[in-house]
């Protein structure tokens, strides 16, 4: 009995360590400045939405929200479209050929982002593309395609080969097998891949920091603007932080099984 109690104490401490930082940020976003900086900390307080009003009054933040939305959705959709076709083709190849291609795709994700971001920045300054959305969408699609392929191959592998053989006996062409058999059968996996790509793009900072201009700033870049002027406005900052991460946490928890699977492959990303 004592061992059992000890286990639950340990479990509670673990969850506290994992969740407290998140809790503290979200709770601070509902505090007045006075409560936020009180020492000892205020545990009970009357919540206020002032910080959220400040954030929504900030036009830069709103346009960053729109940018993040457009860029993550479009680049992920592009990556998953291209990735599905490639993954379908690769999944049909003999093991040897396939493994060599997969190794190459994986190797693309080991290089530091610095390596391709500097040339992209340099070329973009020359052709005046730094402040364009398509530059960012292309950059993220380039990063997401290898990830999408390696994840989608595992989903296509789960589809029984008999389905394909049956369709071929019926005289179906490759494209219609891909379109009418594989895509519907792997729908769950494709949606999970899309969500993981969106999650990654939404959270990504380094590429966005370098390749965005005034009009294309994404949320992670835009939030740093709260850091500079007149010290740090923790109230507005925590509200902005909550708005950025909560939708992604909800989304991630919804596809949790796939997240772990995708992270294994995905964290070898550029």
């Amino acid at each position, binding site marked *: 009995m004592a061992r059992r109690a000890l*286990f639950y104490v340990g*479990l509670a401490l*673990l969850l506290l360590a*994992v*969740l407290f*930082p*998140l809790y*503290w940020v979200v709770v601070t976003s509902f505090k007045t400045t006075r409560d936020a*900086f009180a020492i000892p*900390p205020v545990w009970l307080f009357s919540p206020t939405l002032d910080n959220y009003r400040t954030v929504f009054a900030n036009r830069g933040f709103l346009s960053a929200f729109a940018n993040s939305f457009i860029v993550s959705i479009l680049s992920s959709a592009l990556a998953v479209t291209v990735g599905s*076709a*490639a993954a379908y*083709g*690769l999944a*049909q*190849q*003999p093991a040897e050929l396939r493994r060599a*291609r997969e190794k*190459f795709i994986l190797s*693309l994700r*080991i*290089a*530091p*982002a*610095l*390596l*391709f971001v*500097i*040339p992209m*920045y*340099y070329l973009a300054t020359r052709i005046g593309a730094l402040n364009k959305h398509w530059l960012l969408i292309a950059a993220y699609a*380039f990063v997401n395609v290898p990830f999408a392929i390696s994840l989608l191959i595992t989903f296509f592998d789960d589809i029984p*080969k008999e389905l394909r*053989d049956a369709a*071929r006996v019926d005289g179906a*062409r490759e494209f219609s097998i891909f379109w009418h058999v594989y895509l519907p059968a792997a729908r769950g996996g494709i949606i999970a891949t899309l969500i993981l790509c969106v*999650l990654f793009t*939404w*959270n990504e*900072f*380094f590429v966005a920091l*370098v390749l965005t201009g005034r009009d294309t700033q994404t*949320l*992670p870049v835009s*939030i*740093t603007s709260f850091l500079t002027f007149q010290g740090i406005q923790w109230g507005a*900052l*925590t509200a902005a*932080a909550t708005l*950025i991460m909560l939708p992604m*946490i909800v989304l*991630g*928890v919804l596809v*949790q099984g796939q*997240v*772990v699977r995708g*992270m*294994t492959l995905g*964290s*070898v990303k550029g």
Partner: protein
Amino acid sequence: MRPVAAASDPTRHFFQPIIVCLTVASVALTLFVIWISLHDLSLMRAGREKFVGLDNYIRFLGDPRAMAALWRTVLFTVLATAIEIALGLAVVLFLDRDFAMKRLVRTLLLVPIIMTPVVVGLTWRFLFDPATGMANYLLSLVGIAQVDWLGSPRIALFSVLVADIWQWTPFVILLVMAALESAPTDPLNAARVDGAREWQVTWYVLLPMLRRALAIVALIRAIDSIKAFDLFYIMTRGGPALSTETLNYYGYIVAFTNFDISYALAIAIILTVFTNVALLTMYSVLFPKTGDR
């Protein structure tokens, strides 16, 4: 298995164009990057680029700031990987039993991993605030003097390390947990029947079974730690007094503060080579000449 696997297999058309595109892009990029790194090209002095051979690489060797950054990258990577693996494994062994909320715990462990890294940096900066942060308040409760978490050159790197450990130990936990659950339980029970003590079962039977999973997680964490950027940018910007500047961060400064493109790319190439060497070394240590994969 398959009836016709001819050379004209139409499924090739589905991936070949993309593989060709990726190959062309990566080869072109590599050549372009090497070509620039052999020149002296700066955005501050446009149109005055000239071929300088290996000067940028020689400059790196004689650059004390770069050497310090390289050493710091090694320190951070080794500490982050080792602590996250050890801590993660400990938690997995601790949680290895049936209890009511196991699924819920697993879902909650996912939260740090999918939190926006920039927000993680801000969160820890908030907690580490010297005057009003939670970290110092907790220390004051147990009567320990205030710590200048991010302002002291001797401590700042370890404060960033804490944030990295907080975000990524759950990743180790989730993957190792998954490996543990798919592992067979027969050998464990056999060892127990043979009268082995619980720690012996863990050490001699369970850990060898988890070796492969732990090795893969260690490789992933090492690669990511070498490239860590977000936390450093948000929490310390490489300071105080350059005490948290890693090689990746230094490359960023050289490229986008000094606009010294050629030298920055030489650093990026060195970083890539360094990552690969570290990776191959780790790989051969973790998977000593076994034939699988």
